[in-house]
């Protein structure tokens, strides 16, 4: 029997019924009176000087209310290195650069007006690959940095690294060493709801911004800087997050189109909406960054890992957004997945004239777990050790401090791997062309500190009817945060989840939060909610010392009228009614140790009214709490620091069948075992695990943003293929390991991202097991598999002819 009332039990998410009824409003559905529609004119070159922009024809089109360019608006710098601009002046550095924008009375007129803007360019030679960008004398994407200092190279000044132990010694002492080069592709988040915003300024210049964001408070700060640039210093900005049709990392930065909406709203004094269509979403949002990785790992004769060396190069695209900080998360698996005493890591980022990149679920982790876990299977083969056995010999354990300085408090990796192997019938005989593979993961499980505060606050407001409104500054984007939050509050306060409303996220009403990333939403929100609930209980119980005895006696009087024969037990309510003896349960307040009599139970709403309506001593119950996890902001150059309050582990396994004539890979089944600390809501948790796995399958086999000279070739679902019901037709076995983490709310860890982290190497390892070919660049298309099979067949044929 669980000691919890709500935690750990499947319950539909609070927003499910409205979503099922089609009543939920997304940015697409929102309108404001007098609202104009904004549209952006994008660059037609990957790299070019802007010679001239003629907006006169667009401005004359009936229905157009404003046309703006960088040349007639104040400069608004954006991006965390300030290397980007809301509207571009001087030159364009990528196809999606915003050169102009219009606001018009309807979207069709706005689109027509954008087509009427003439831009004259002088094309410049561009750089479209790492090698091109890093070559001697390569054209520079940026001639100077944000401070105006000249730049001499396309390499970003950001550097990430880690050195621990003595690599050279360890490598020489290794019994087996395997090296390899791996690469990953650009991946598009592919939210079903496209991006958009509505900007609106009041008569004092205060901004209200409805935005698809995961970082409402950081966005607020960014937008206030834009107000300042527009000559509105000190004005307020309120960021309101509508229901999101997915986010997956797209909302981790502010975007040029949002600033453009602000500029247009300012210019026209009207609300302005910009809504991307699917093609704009694909072409003009920042995908997950690609990576080229060189890896070497070694082990001793017993299969104990001796060292790991990882070198990463990333094509950052034309501007720096959070894609440029992927190495901060790469450090986790590089230094800490399995016990490895000697680690060397270095990551370099390079500007190119390709699309600039951003965050997506997993944030750098899948990019290096892919080479680490693929290469580990190669090492196992070199050492003649079963890949599962090799992993178990190097498994992380609780109590460990890793080379990065991660303090492993709880760790269910061993159990995850055991479950994976068991469910896959590891070691069993299989049909020809079938094989199994597995891979593991470590990720932040107690938020991830990338900012000086990694906390979040909760405000809890009780009304006279026992309803509890909860405000949290993080973002529900479909993942189930509000479900976890409402169950937590219900559990902590002993009320039904039906009594709890989670307010829409709005910087005007919610306390500060750093943003919903790093799988931190439920971890932070629920911890803050537990603290706020504790304060509420204390406030209610203190007031109840006065009001409870009166309410209980009223109860008793009524009860005795209804039950004349009732014998009142000997119990002194007034003495027993002490704050430390009260309990909240089933929506009622009771006294612990009191006889189980109905009149000794007072409904919470009645109690709250009594606390409120008592003259000058009346009070309403509203509490707030801020939770700051115990973690350190790492030193990124050294790659050291305990960045999370706890760590999430997991393992996935795949059984695949490979068609040797076509190179097609069919997934027969998959297992996903995750150390989740504690299951809060099994239904939403399973949703996160299944959904993450499907994105992992897309990353492994199908998805890639293809570019040619900086132009995106497949900006639509016609040619950017995410898995459908057909691809996900195989059985998935989920296993949740509960390690009851002391830092987690009820013991829970963050679970949002891990689902896609080890999927690709698990599948690649299974392909190798099935047909003996190793694919090293994602996605693993049938064509790549067939090419590898052909190459192997050619080698075998040569071997046969050369053998006498």
């Amino acid at each position: 029997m669980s000691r919890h009332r709500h935690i750990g039990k499947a319950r539909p998410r609070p927003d499910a019924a409205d979503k099922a009824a089609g009543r939920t409003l997304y940015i697409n559905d929102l309108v404001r009176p007098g609202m104009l529609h904004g549209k952006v004119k994008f660059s037609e070159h990957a790299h070019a000087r802007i010679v001239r922009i003629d907006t006169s024809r667009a401005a004359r089109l009936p229905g157009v209310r404003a046309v703006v360019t960088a040349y007639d608006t104040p400069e608004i710098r954006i991006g965390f290195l300030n290397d980007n601009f809301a509207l571009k002046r001087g030159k364009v550095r990528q196809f999606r650069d915003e050169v102009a924008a219009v606001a018009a009375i309807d979207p069709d007129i706005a689109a027509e007006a954008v087509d009427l803007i003439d831009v004259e360019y002088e094309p410049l030679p561009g750089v479209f690959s790492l090698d091109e960008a890093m070559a001697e004398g390569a054209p520079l994407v940026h001639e100077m940095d944000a401070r105006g200092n000249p730049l001499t190279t396309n390499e970003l000044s950001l550097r990430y690294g880690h050195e621990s132990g003595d690599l050279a010694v360890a490598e020489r002492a290794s019994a087996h060493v395997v090296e390899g080069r791996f690469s990953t592709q650009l991946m598009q988040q592919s939210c079903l709801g496209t991006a958009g915003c509505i900007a609106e300024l009041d008569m004092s210049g205060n901004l209200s911004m409805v935005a698809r964001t995961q970082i409402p408070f950081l966005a607020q700060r960014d937008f206030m800087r834009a107000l300042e640039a527009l000559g509105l210093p000190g004005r307020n900005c309120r960021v309101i997050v509508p229901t999101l049709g997915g986010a997956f990392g797209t909302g981790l930065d502010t975007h040029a189109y949002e600033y453009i909406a602000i500029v247009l709203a300012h210019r026209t004094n009207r609300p302005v909406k910009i809504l991307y269509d699917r093609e704009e979403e694909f072409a003009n949002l920042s995908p997950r960054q690609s990576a080229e990785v060189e890896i070497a790992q070694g082990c001793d004769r017993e299969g104990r890992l001796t060292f790991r060396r990882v070198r990463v190069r990333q094509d950052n695209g034309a501007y720096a957004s959070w894609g440029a900080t992927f190495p901060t998360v790469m450090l986790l698996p590089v230094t800490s997945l399995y016990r490895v005493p000697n680690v060397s890591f270095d990551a370099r980022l390079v500007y190119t004239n390709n699309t600039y990149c951003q965050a997506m679920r997993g944030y750098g982790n899948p990019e290096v777990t892919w080479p680490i876990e693929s290469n580990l299977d190669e090492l196992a083969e070199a050492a003649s050790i079963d890949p599962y056995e090799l992993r178990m010999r190097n498994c992380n354990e609780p109590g460990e401090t890793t080379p990065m300085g991660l303090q492993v408090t709880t760790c269910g990796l061993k159990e995850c791997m055991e479950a994976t192997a068991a469910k896959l019938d590891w070691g069993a005989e299989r049909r020809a062309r079938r094989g199994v593979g597995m891979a593991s993961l470590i990720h932040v499980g107690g938020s991830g500190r990338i900012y000086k505060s990694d906390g979040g606050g909760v405000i809890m407001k009780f009304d006279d009817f026992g309803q509890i409104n909860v405000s949290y500054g993080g973002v529900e984007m479909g993942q189930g945060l509000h479900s976890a939050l409402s169950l937590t509050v219900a559990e902590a306060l002993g009320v039904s989840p039906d009594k709890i409303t989670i307010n829409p996220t709005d910087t005007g009403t919610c306390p500060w939060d750093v943003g919903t990333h790093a799988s931190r939403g439920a971890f932070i929100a629920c911890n803050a909610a537990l603290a706020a609930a504790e304060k509420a209980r204390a406030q209610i119980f203190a007031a109840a010392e006065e009001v409870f005895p009166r309410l209980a006696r009223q109860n008793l009087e009524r009860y005795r009228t209804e039950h004349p024969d009732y014998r009142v037990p000997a119990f002194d309510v007034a003495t027993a009614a002490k704050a430390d003896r009260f309990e909240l349960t089933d929506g009622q307040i009771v006294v612990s140790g009191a006889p189980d009599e109905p009149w000794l139970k007072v409904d919470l709403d009645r109690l709250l009214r009594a606390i409120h309506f008592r003259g000058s001593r009346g009070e309403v119950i509203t509490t707030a709490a801020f939770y700051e996890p115990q973690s350190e902001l790492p030193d990124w150059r050294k790659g050291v620091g305990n960045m999370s309050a706890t760590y999430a582990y997991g393992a996935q396994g795949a059984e695949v069948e490979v068609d040797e004539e076509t190179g097609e890979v069919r997934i027969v089944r998959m297992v996903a075992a995750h150390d989740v600390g504690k299951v809060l809501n099994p239904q939403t948790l399973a949703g996160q695990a299944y959904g993450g796995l499907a994105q992992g399958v897309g990353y492994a086999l199908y998805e890639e943003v293809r570019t040619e000279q900086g132009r995106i070739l497949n900006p639509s679902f016609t040619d950017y293929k995410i898995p459908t019901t057909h691809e996900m037709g195989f059985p998935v076995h989920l296993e949740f390991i509960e390690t009851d983490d002391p830092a987690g709310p009820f013991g829970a860890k963050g679970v949002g991202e891990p689902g896609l982290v080890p999927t690709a190497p698990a599948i690649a390892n299974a392909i190798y097991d099935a047909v003996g070919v190793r694919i090293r660049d994602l996605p693993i298309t049938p064509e790549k598999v067939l090419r590898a099979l052909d190459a192997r067949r050619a080698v075998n044929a040569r071997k046969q002819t050369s053998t006498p």
Partner: protein
Amino acid sequence: MTPFDYHRPETLAEAFRIAGAIPGARYVAGGTDMMVRIRSGRERPGALISLGRIDTLSRIELGSVTQIGARTTIGQVLEHPELTAAYPLLALAARPFASVQVRNLATVGGNVCNASPAADMAPVLLALDARVEIEGPQGTREVPLDAFFKGPGQTDLAPREVLTSIVLEPPRPEARSCFLRRSRVGMDIALTSVAVHFQLAGNRLTRPRVAAGAVAPCPLRLRAVENLLEGRAVDAALLDEAARLAEGEIAPITDIRASASYRRRLTSTLVRRAITAACEESR
């Protein structure tokens, strides 16, 4: 989206008249392709003339010949048990056709008239020796389907003419068939598709038809393969030869979906597998 005028004639004569009166007017059936092209700006029609109200275009008749009205949706093909029992190939091609939603809009005639190299119904119709019936202001004519395709997006249709129906020979006795299609994911444009249709006399193939899609400017019959198979019993050597000939007859391109060389390999593999599967198909 560029606005357009929309006409809904109830007779072909009226359709011809509108087509003659409005420069750049285009006929539209299900619209699943036309609407996408208009939205992307690839097509800017003077007006659209919907064929949706011309009832004669939606009939399916099985008789001395089989007539499938051009405006029959892919979904209606699947919901017609007599038709799919007589021509299992039609169901094999219709079942994986895009999605349920698209199948309920897209029409057999529209799929043929788009003349996409990857048109999903084309290979099976070619393998069934389909002819198309065309009606225009000057009258009616019939053309074999493989003479109808002139290039990507190009057909034998003259201005104002409408493809009214697909005409099939009665089902052949002892007919064997197979349709194989490959795409990257479930709902996707084909990388290649292969349809085979023949009769078995003992173990010998007669009147073999082999057609392929997405591997040449038009969906096409692989005549060298057909000639090879005529009167022969299937064995490994014959399959190898058929696969080799198939590679020589197609002219695939490299695009975002696959390379030409991969399409070539895949097509030859599918030719081999489709012939084998059709032979093994029990009736």
